């Protein structure tokens, strides 16, 4: 049967997430966050979220990610239900000084990538050592 892998799927949200008016489950997307010299990059798995349905906000050092999933319940006899469908929500406190005007994001194949460039002052600089 299935090979054992390191692959993982989304997990249900903790109750601190604001609820939607129409109810239904909310999910915490799984993310990878990496830091390079110039920027922070956030990768989030948002299966079923179209690029135009991603609501991304950066305010006072907080990055809020909200992915709306279009209902896609098929009609007919349910034979197997191994996962639920619902919106994605997650917020991060970003400590590094971020240049908010240069934040960029793209969404492809259900994976959102957010580029958070650091302010010039926060970027590491190589110090030239002069020979005296």
């Amino acid at each position, binding site marked *: *049967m*299935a*090979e*054992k*892998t*390191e*692959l*993982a*799927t*989304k*997990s*249900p949200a903790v109750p601190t997430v604001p609820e939607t008016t129409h109810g239904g489950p909310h999910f915490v997307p*799984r*993310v*990878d*966050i*990496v*830091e*390079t*010299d110039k920027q*922070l*990059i956030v*990768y989030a*798995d*948002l*299966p*079923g*979220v*179209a690029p135009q349905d991603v609501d991304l906000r950066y305010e006072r050092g907080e990055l809020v990610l909200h992915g709306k999933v279009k209902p*896609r319940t*098929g*009609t*007919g*006899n*349910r*034979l*197997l*239900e*191994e*996962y639920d469908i619902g919106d994605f929500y997650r917020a991060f406190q970003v400590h590094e000084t971020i240049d908010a005007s240069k934040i960029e994001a793209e969404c492809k*194949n*259900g*994976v959102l990538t957010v580029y958070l460039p650091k302010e010039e002052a926060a970027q590491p600089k190589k110090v030239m050592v002069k020979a005296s």
Partner: protein
Amino acid sequence: MFGTRWQPFSPVWNQLTQLQSEMNRLFDRWGGDGNRAQAVFPPLNIWEADDALMVEAELPGLDMKDLEIYVTGTDQLTLKGERKETLPQKNAQHRQERGFGKFVRVLTLPIPVDANKVEAKLENGILTLKLPKHEAAKPRKIAVKAS
């Protein structure tokens, strides 16, 4: 004092506790995360429409070229693929929650399907398969003649 007394550190007791912790570990691994076992990837939703079986899976980050779908005979479906790690050169890793790797899932469908007419669609990380039912499995309306 004579007679049997409960000995918390007897070898038998140790073996029992060891067995118990082993069992807990086993159950934690297969069913501890929420209510569902996460032993198989990807999880699937399958439903039966009038003329087809619909199979849906969440596969974020996968391209069609990373995925192989087979229908063997009329009732065996195989989903095979690899989610490749695409992280750039980095200085520091703040979070690593997403999984990468290969997966295979084989399942036997409850209704025979027509392997030649299977349609697959991968959109926003959602794989949708439409497996039309085999002619023999389609319901037929039987006309009742008035005698």
